[in-house]
């Protein structure tokens, strides 16, 4: 088969393309995208909703119950929730930036690689920080509750010891997050990178 024939054969398949039923197309237009980015955004919204559903009643409960003596816990939880709000917003912005289907293929790929790298960095650091902040908040809350009840605070609950425990834990968590991010997105980013390199090379 010569190359000249390829175009002829290629063009002849135009007749094979089935006419899509307009009703079926109209139905398709109502469907949600099943693309990876759309799915990631939907999952993010579900995560955010779950956070709100679990945190808001807890915050209100600590404000109202115990005659308001544990209202500081509400404040701590509110700080964590605010952190999560920023986290979800930033992640959503990055996901939106990740796809520009109307752009040239090369610039869409370059944009995806750049946004995905930022997304992964953000995922790793924020994922580590969120857990550390939650742990610090929990320690502060327990200490506060112990002080309220005039309970003795043991040496293992003093800040230097906690810091000594938290530091290696933070490093471990950071590496765990790096490994997980690479497991989730590593192959995809490599594939995108390879395509971009292929497009750029002469």
């Amino acid at each position, binding site marked *: 088969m010569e190359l000249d024939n390829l175009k002829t054969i290629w063009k002849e398949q135009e007749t094979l393309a089935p006419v899509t039923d307009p009703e079926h197309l109209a139905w398709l237009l109502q469907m949600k995208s099943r693309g990876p980015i759309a799915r990631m955004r939907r999952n993010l919204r579900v995560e955010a909703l779950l956070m709100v559903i679990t945190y808001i009643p807890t915050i209100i409960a600590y404000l109202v119950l115990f005659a308001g003596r544990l209202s500081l816990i509400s404040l701590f939880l509110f700080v964590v929730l605010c952190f999560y709000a920023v986290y979800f917003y930033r992640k959503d912005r990055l996901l939106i930036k990740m796809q520009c289907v109307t752009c040239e293929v090369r610039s869409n790929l370059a944009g995806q690689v750049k946004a995905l790298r930022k997304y992964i960095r953000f995922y790793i650091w924020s994922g580590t920080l969120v857990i550390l902040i939650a742990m610090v908040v929990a320690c502060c809350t327990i200490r506060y509750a112990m002080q309220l009840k005039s309970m003795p605070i043991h040496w293992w609950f003093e800040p230097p010891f906690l810091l000594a425990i938290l530091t290696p834990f933070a490093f471990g968590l950071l590496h765990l997050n790096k490994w997980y991010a690479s497991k989730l997105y590593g192959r995809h980013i490599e594939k995108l990178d390879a395509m971009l390199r*292929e497009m750029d090379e*002469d």
Partner: protein
Amino acid sequence: MSNQDRQEVFISLVNANRSILYKICRMYGATEPDRQDLFQEIVIQLWRSYPGFRGDARFSTWLYRIALNTAISDLRKQRRVGPSFDPDQLSIPMQDMQYVNDKEEQLQQLYAAIDRLTEVEKALTMLYLEDKSYQEMEEILGISQNNLRVKMNRIKEKLRKMTKEAAYGIR
């Protein structure tokens, strides 16, 4: 223009350009379900982007960009099997059957060769076979014309070799 009118215009435009979508889905989808998923995703992306289509670019250029971007950057895992052929999609009179079978066989060989190309090479091959100029290819892919020429020469050579192998049954 009401939403209903806009939708009707869009549907007629998609149907008028259905062969482009058909070919892209056949090229990038390994199995029939993959192709159907890809077709659905491309149509959804086209519809979402349609309000932004100002008409300053050709509709087909705009469509190629969206369809190729969707096909190339799709994360979904595809079933890795050779290109398949759905005979139900044809409704051809009996006397033309032999001719169509020969043509279809050649088309199968062409797709088998294309299937061995990279995602980027597939996009270039598609535009080459669609007789797009280097100017149009550049507008769709964002690769400089000089670079496109070099790549096209390489791909043509690869295709020539692979279709020859396919014709002689070498895989």
